[in-house]
Structures are given as C-alpha cells and as structure tokens.
C-alpha cells in the first residue's frame, strides 16, 4: 500500500528513463518494471503481420451482400448474373447453407443468428449472400449483379416500445414467439431495497441512457479459410480475441472434428471486444473454401464493420438512490431496458444475461440494492459485448457515478466529499456487496485523495467559483469506479458451456532461454512483453530471452481468450503458477547438481543456492542444461524444465480508480473542451507501468469519444446513421488533454502475483467523470443530467432546459 504522504508516482513529468531510452536500456528490469514493448520494433516499422497481409497460393476473395433495409421478408434472390461473372467462382445464399445446417448458427447467448438470411432480414446490413471471386474487386462488383426482392416490413427501432402490444414480431423464426422479449434478469433483494427506499430521507431518480456505440478497431474483422480436402483439415486465419473458443465452436457447429481445425489469430489491429464473436463472414469464408477447394479471404470494409459487427452498450436505465439527508447513501435500484438488436449475440457468461451489470452498487457501502434488466429485440445489428466494457461494468459504473452526482446536487454536497463519506472502508474487505460480489481489496479513500491532490481540487473549486461569477462555464467532474474483471471462476462462469479458465505452458530450453505459450491473444495490449516479464519475475530469465507464443490453437494450450480485462488476472495467474512449477522442478534438479537436499536450497531471482553458502549455487540456465543433459535426475523428475497450468481463478479481481475531469464550455455554442483529466488507477501489482499507462491513455481517449461524440443512431425506417467515419466520430488528439496519471497499489489477495487487470479501467471510469464535469458546469442553469454523447447541440439544448436523450 502506498499512502498519500508519499505519492507513489510522479504526477506529471515522465521519469528520466522514459526521456532517455539509452539509460532505460541499461536498466532493463528482469521482472516487473518499465520496459519498452518487445513487439513494438515490428509495429513501429510497419512490419506487423495482420490478417490482410496474408496471401495464400491460389487464394480467392469473398464479399458479403447486405440488406439495405432493416426489416423485410425475403421474396426472392436471383444470383444468375453474378454467377455468370467471368471472375466469380461461387455465389452462396442462405438456401445453399440450409442443407449443411449452417444457415443459422448459435450465438454466444443461447440464441441463433442467421449466417445468410433465409426468411427475413432483421437489420440493415444483415448478411444475405456471399460471393467468391478471383479478386476482391470482382467479388464486390458481382454483389451488384445479385437481384434481391424484399417485402418491406415495419421495423422496431425504439427499444422502449419493443414490448408494446401489436409491435411486429422480429424473431418469428423462433418457435411460438409472439413478442420481442429476450430475458428478464434481476440481482439483489427487491423487497429489502424497497423497504430502505420507503424510510429514506432523500430519494433521487434519473433516466440515464448509455447509447449504442461501436468499438471501431483500426483493423476491421476478417478471415481466411483454407480447407484441405485431402486430409480434411481446416486452417482458419481470423481476427479473433478468442482462438480456442472459436475452434471449439466451429467443431460443434460445422461438424469438423476439433483436431482437424487450426485457428490462427495473427497480429490484431485493435479489438475492444469487437473481435470476440463469430461473424457470418467467417462462416461464409469456410463454406466458400470447402465449395471452391481454394483458400478464401474475406475482410469487411469500414461500413460493414460499423453497421453489422458487435456494437456496445445500448442500455436505457432508470436509476434511483436512497440516502439520509446528511449524505449517507443507503440503497440503489434500477430498471434497465437492454437493446440487443435482432439476435441475442452478446458475449456474457451464461448465468449472467446482463453481464456483470450488478456491480452497479459501485464503490459504496450500501444497505440494499436491486436491479432488473429486460432484454429486447429490435431491428438493429446484434452483439453487445464490445468496446472495453468488461461485461457491462461500463454501464453499471456510469449509472451509479451519474446517480451519486445527482444526489450530491440534490443535497448541495461536494461530489468528492459525498463519495468519501460512503466508500467501503479498507477493513471491510473482502467486502460482500448486496448483489452477490465479493470485492477482493480496496483502499478507496487513498486513491480518491491522491487524485484530488494531483488535481488541486480545492483550488479548482475556487477557480470555478470565480469563473461562475463572471458567467463562464467551468465544470469539475469526479468519478470513482470499481470493476469486476478476470472471469471465471469456472464453476460460476462459462461461455456456451466452456469454463472461463486459461492455460499457460512454460518451457525453459537447454540454454536457459524460454518460451511461454498462452491461450489468450493480444490485440495491442502488449502480451509479448507483459507475460515475458511475469516469467522473468518468477524465474529470473531476462524478458528478452523469453518468447511469447499466442494466437495459434496448434501451438498453445486451451483457454477462453482476451476480453473483459481477463488476460492478466487469468492467464497472468496461469503463467505465474507454471513458472513456479518450473522453479520447484529446478530446485529438485539443482539439489542433485549441488549435492544438497532440496530443503537446504534457497531461491534468489534466477538462482538456487545452498543456504549459508551463497557461492554454492546454480543459475536457471545451468539447471536447464542439467535437466536436458546427462545428469542423473531424482526419482519422479523427468528430463526437461517445462510446466503447464490451467488457472481457474478463485474469484474475480476488482480494480478501481479515482478520476477527475475539468471542462470548459463555450456558453455561446455549447462546445465542450476537456481541459484536464486526472486518472489515479489501482490495478494491484503493476507488471509494466509503461504498458499500464498506455492502456489508461487509450481508455481515457475512448471515454472522451463516448462522452462527447460517439453514437450509432438509426432513423425511424431503420437506417443506420453511423455507417462511416464521416458519421461515426471517434476522437483525435485534438479533443484530448495531456493525461495526468497516478496510481496506488492494492494487490489482489487471491491472485498469484496480486495483479488485477487494467485493460478496461479507463474506458469504464472516464465517461462519468466527463459527463459529471459537464453537468457540474451547467449547474447554475439548473441542469441535472445530460445524456451522452454531449455534442454541442445537446449541451446547448441542456442549457435551454430541454436536453433530449439520443434515443
């Protein structure tokens, strides 16, 4: 633990090693510490190897014909002209897939999704036909030769009205379906919560929308399917965050034996959850390869990515908070309408159809809490995992942090003070919250006070008072988040029956160099560095001597993949434990080499030595050579220095952080400028601070995007209004300030190295800080809430007292 009196981190200036790479190189950590990323030399030189860089001999190209309308009955599809195109090798429709039982595929949420439409189209951009041609230009041209007749139906676009009587039934493909209802899910104690609300001095309530946004990774999704008809093996290159889970699903769905499927996930240009699911285009590429006998590449374009692949959020929430008049928060409750689009394809652990939304109790010690989430179908693209949301933690944190500010305003209390008054106290951990979570560890007040110190909170409030007196609009927003990440444990958490555990395998070669093989797959998180550092920390082998292998099911152990900030909490645990197994084995071998009893050996990083005689020792390199050499090994010890572990986490981890945002708003135009942003994160043990800061910077930028501009909207006919980067805005360097980061360290008590995961913290924590700052700026005008995205138009409307939600 660090304390405020000794700030653990420099707020502001970077340290000397960052400014002087040469100095940094001389001081490379063997283990945890700042280390430039091992993968960056290839990325910064343009030598990354992404899916679209792969060209196989004889490879053909696929393109998907998509529905121009949101809801229609398919009357006919005429592919004659497309099939006659001289460069076209195959045209595939839903009717062709039906005999193969592939027209529909199971989703990750016990629903089915059309691969190619057979009966109806249910969202604009839905896959209708697939063309395989000799080049990507011909494939695209041939799409225009396919004639489709649609009988257009009224679409269901407003999730609030999806369950109204008489609404069109979107999923009439499902037996006996008479409405657009998917699920109702509750957590917490409804009666106990109502009782607390009934006796509370103060109750505030607010409708809060977390609108539909899109991860928009720089690299769009794609696949190359290469089916070898001779040995029946399918090699599938895919932009996937979860190669092993994909392989198992292909085996289950397509009937290809699992050992005959190899999924390779090359370098990935950003995922953010967008690359978790199996998209129809992937399945079509597989069918295309089987049909033509050639490798088939399919890469979606930007509009396809934005319009058809997994979106994020789309939660319409009503939040309520009960409190005492002196600011003690007693209970929270909420009802949510979750818009899941046309197919329930959200990726959540099976037991949790609303993901981990029930972490909406936040960082506060409450007497009661209750949430109810209703999932509905609409004529919009399916999905719902995506965008660094750690399974709906983003929505939960946004709701509770917005509601705490609504309460602060009602009580005329400072929002930081209100939070400090209600935090779970350090001695209460492990803390059982009211919806079933056991928070592992936390020092919330320390983080909050550090963030206020870096910000100069009191001085900011004085500046704000002066500006208000002059009619200027300055806002200070506070948010404090607690995440729940690193799913499993496997007994509680699975995806389509696959337990959420992850494997790792560590091998030390005879010369003392090592390889670590992972089930998770990096999309830019720096796995090749972080996981090498974990092995280095445990075994004392320098990180540059450790190869990290991932993204190939033929070369790596099974596991569920990288999303929901899982990699460090789950695979990090696996790698640490596998390394410790290697270390234990090294001790046995060293004991033979040193002619000492194992119990008499002591470990220092990289070396076992004889207790009391430090000169007598063997390095891990010497031991590795001994293991693979001619040494006579002890009973039960075989001749290698390898180990494998599948790590089933005993609990999730609970990273937290305190964020403060300062905005200035132009009173004449409503334009919001984020002037400062202070982020204090606690992700437990810090493996590579440089990578952590990079993750935080990226997530904060995401947060600015969602708070100010990102939005996938639809018109009433069901047309997607966010189908290109002209319409779907993502932030640039011009919209973000210089990030001011700090940290505290509260290790997870149950994790092998105490690490909690950082991948999504900033995306989760920053939107409420920004929106809270905007509302704070507008408080003199009586504004209590503004929905995202806080575009100039919406902020101005709020100033006029007539802000509308985006949907």
């Amino acid at each position: 633990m660090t304390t405020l009196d000794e700030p653990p981190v420099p707020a502001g200036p970077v340290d000397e090693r960052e400014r002087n790479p040469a100095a940094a190189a001389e001081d490379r950590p063997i283990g945890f510490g700042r280390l430039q990323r091992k993968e960056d030399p290839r990325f910064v030189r343009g030598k990354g190897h992404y899916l679209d860089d792969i060209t196989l001999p004889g490879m053909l190209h696929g393109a998907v014909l998509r529905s121009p309308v949101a809801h229609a009955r398919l009357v006919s599809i005429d592919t004659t002209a497309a099939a006659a195109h001289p460069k076209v090798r195959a045209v595939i429709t839903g009717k062709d897939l039906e005999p193969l039982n592939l027209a529909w595929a199971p989703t990750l949420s016990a629903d089915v999704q059309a691969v190619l439409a057979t009966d109806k189209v249910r969202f604009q951009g839905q896959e209708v036909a697939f063309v395989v041609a000799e080049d990507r230009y011909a494939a695209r041209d041939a799409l225009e030769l396919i004639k489709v007749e649609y009988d257009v139906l009224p679409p269901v676009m407003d999730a609030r009205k999806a369950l109204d009587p008489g609404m069109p039934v979107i999923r009439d493909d499902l037996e006996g379906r008479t409405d657009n209802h998917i699920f109702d899910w509750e957590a917490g104690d409804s009666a106990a919560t109502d009782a607390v609300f009934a006796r509370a001095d103060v109750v505030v309530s607010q409708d809060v929308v977390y609108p539909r946004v899109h991860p928009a990774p720089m690299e769009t999704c794609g696949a190359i399917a290469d089916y070898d008809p001779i040995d029946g093996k399918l090699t599938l290159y895919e932009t996937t965050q979860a190669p092993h889970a994909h392989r198992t699903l292909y085996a289950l769905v397509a009937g290809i034996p699992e050992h005959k499927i190899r999924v390779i996930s090359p370098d990935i240009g950003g995922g953010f959850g967008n690359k978790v699911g199996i998209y129809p285009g992937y399945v079509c590429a597989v069918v295309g390869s089987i049909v033509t006998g050639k490798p088939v590449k399919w890469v979606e374009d930007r509009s396809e990515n934005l319009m058809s692949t997994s979106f994020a959020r789309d939660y319409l929430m009503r939040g309520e908070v009960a409190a005492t008049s002196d600011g003690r928060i007693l209970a929270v409750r909420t009802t949510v309408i979750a818009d899941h689009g046309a197919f329930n394809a959200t990726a959540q652990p099976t037991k949790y159809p609303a993901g981990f939304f029930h972490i909406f109790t936040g960082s506060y010690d409450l007497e009661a809490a209750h949430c109810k989430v209703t999932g509905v179908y609409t004529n919009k693209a399916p999905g719902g995992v995506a965008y660094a949301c750690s399974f709906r933690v983003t929505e939960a944190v946004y709701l509770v942090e917005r509601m705490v500010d609504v309460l602060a305003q009602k009580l005329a209390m400072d929002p930081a003070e209100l939070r400090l008054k209600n935090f779970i106290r350090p001695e209460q951990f492990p803390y059982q919250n009211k919806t079933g979570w056991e928070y592992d560890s936390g020092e919330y007040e320390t983080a909050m006070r550090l963030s206020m110190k870096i910000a100069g909170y009191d001085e900011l409030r004085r500046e704000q008072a002066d500006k208000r007196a002059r009619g200027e609009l300055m806002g200070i927003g506070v948010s404090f988040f607690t995440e729940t990440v690193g799913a499993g444990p496997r007994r509680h958490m699975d995806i389509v029956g696959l337990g959420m555990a992850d494997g790792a395998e560590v091998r030390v070669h005879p010369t003392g160099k090592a390889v670590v093989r992972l089930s998770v797959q990096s999309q830019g998180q720096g796995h090749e560095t972080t996981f090498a550092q974990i092995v280095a920390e445990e075994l004392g082998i320098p990180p540059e001597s450790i190869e990290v292998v991932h993204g190939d099911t033929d070369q790596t152990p099974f596991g569920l993949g990288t999303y929901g900030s899982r990699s460090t909490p789950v695979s990090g645990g696996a790698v640490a434990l596998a390394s410790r197994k290697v270390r234990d084995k090294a001790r046995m071998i060293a004991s033979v080499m040193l002619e000492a009893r194992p119990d008499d050996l002591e470990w220092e990083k990289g070396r076992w030595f004889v207790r009391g005689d430090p000169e007598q020792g063997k390095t891990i390199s010497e031991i590795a050579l001994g293991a693979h050499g001619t040494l006579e090994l002890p009973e039960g010890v075989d001749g290698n220095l390898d180990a494998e572990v599948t790590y089933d986490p005993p609990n999730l981890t609970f990273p937290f952080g305190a964020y403060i945002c300062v905005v200035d708003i132009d009173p004449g135009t409503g334009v919001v400028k984020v002037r400062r942003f202070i982020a204090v994160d606690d992700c437990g043990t810090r493996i590579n601070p440089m990578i952590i800061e990079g993750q935080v910077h990226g997530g904060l930028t995401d947060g600015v995007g969602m708070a100010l501009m990102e939005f996938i909207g639809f018109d009433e006919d069901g047309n997607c209004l966010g189908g290109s980067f002209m319409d779907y805005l993502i932030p640039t360097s011009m919209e973000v300030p210089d990030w001011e980061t700090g940290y505290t360290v509260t290790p997870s008590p149950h994790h092998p190295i105490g690490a909690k995961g950082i991948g999504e913290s900033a995306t989760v924590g920053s939107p409420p800080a920004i929106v809270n700052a905007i509302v704070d700026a507008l408080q003199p005008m009586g504004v209590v809430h503004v929905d995202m995205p806080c575009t100039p138009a919406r902020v101005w409307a709020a100033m006029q007292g007539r802000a509308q939600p985006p949907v």
Partner: protein
Amino acid sequence: MQIPAAFDYARADSVEHALELLEQHGPESRLIAGGHSLLPMMKLRLARPEWLVDINDLHELDFISEDAEVLRIGALTRHATLLESDVIARLFAIITDAEHVIADPVVRNRGTIGGSLCQADPAEDLSTVCHVLSAEVVIRGRSGERTLSMADLHRGPYETAVAQDEILTEIRLPVRPRFGSAYEKVERRVGDWAIVAAGAAVSLAGDGSIEQARVGLTAVGLDSGTVTRAEEALRGGRPSEELFVEAARLAGEDCSPDSDQRGPVDYKRHLADELTRRVLRRACRRAAEQGAEQTCRLP
C-alpha cells in the same frame, strides 16, 4: 477496404490536355485534384465516373499572385498552401481562419480550393468564404475562358456552372482598403463538417462607418451563401455591439437549416446568430487595425 466500381485513369500535363481528355472520354469523365471528396464518394459507390482525369501535374494552376486590385489564386492551390500564406493572412484573414478548421492536415495537404468550390457541398467552408469575399472565378473550356461571380457559379447543392468539359482555373479576390474579414465554425469534432459556420467581410469608410459588409453562413441551407438583410443592416452603420447583434439576429432568421445528426434547427439558427456576432466583431476589429496601419503608412 472500401472498393470503388471500375474506372479508367488518365493524367493531364496541361490545362489544354486536360480539356482534350475530358472531351475525348465524354460525359462520364471527371477531373480529380486532391480527391478528398470524389474518392470517398467513389469508394461508397455514390459516384461512379468511368474516367478520372488527374490534374495534379498542372502546376500552372498552383499559384497565389497579388497585385494592387486583386489577388489571384490558382485552382490547384492546396489548402495547406493557403493556410501558410502570409499574403493571404494579411489581405484575407477569413481564409486563414477557415483553413485552420478545414478537415485535418492530411486533407489540407491534398485538397485544393478549386476542388472545394466545384464540389459545391453546402457545408464547404471555402464556398462561403469566396461568397463573402465577392470572388470571381475563371472557367476555361475548349472554346475559351469566362469569368463568373460566386452567385453564378453555384447553382445549388453539388451543382455548379462548370460544364463537364470545363475546368475552373482561377479564383480572383478584390483587394480593398480598410478591409477586415473573419470566419468561425462549430463542429462536433476537429475535421468534421460544420454544424454551422459564419464568415464576414467589412470595409470601413474614412469616418469609420461600414462601407460594405458581407455575411455568409455555411451548412444552413442558403442558396447564395450570404444573408442579404443582415448585410443591408450593416451598411453605413458604425461598428457597435448593438449593430452586430441586430445583424446577427437577421442572419439567424434568414437562414433555413435542416435538422440532422449535427443538430436541430433551433440550435443551428442560434449558432448562425452567435457566430455572425463573433465574426462581425473580429472582422471590424481587423478592418480598423488594417485601416490604422494603412493610415500610418501614408505620408
């Protein structure tokens, strides 16, 4: 990757050559300069020219030339060149203001003033700027050259008087004494099209009153790009906050914006009003400063 429909490509080495190529390849041939409007439209298959005639080698159209009465700008002059030009900043600060907020550096390195005017996008900043500056444009065809006012050039959204077999070659801006101009835009994000933008140009009489004023608005459905009643209200008046407020009120009333993802009608009207006030203040201040400089230089 977004993939356009098939097209053919020719590269012109002179204006005459470009005109020949346009004639030769017929009505489905299009000029391409910076390509930052045409190429995205082609990739979305909203535009499907059969031939692209590339005029990026026509360096004869890349110039800024100043004389006492008029500043001439070649149609192939890039946004980045305009942004960095000292002559432009001195004579027509409105152009420098606008170029700061047109797209991003990548687009500004390629996009041209001629392309901007010929695209005639209702949200195009330089169209408003040229309206406000009472620009004339030179259009060349196989049969010769003609000169048009901006009002005659722009016939509506995405429609101009430039025929398929003609090239806009030059923009001419009249230089006036005691002149000031300014532009301001509100956008959802840097690089986005304007929600609304406003431009103003004023020249002051010797007594400090407003001799001529032009006010233009971007992306609010104005055919001419300028708002006449506001201009009339300004003419002859002395620059003052009351006068700006009144002119801006008229500007807000006289535009006809549509509601879209960038904002509703009431907000856009408000912006037209707010931004008109801001650019009038700045343009008049600049005119006064320039007048003072010119007065100092007189013997």
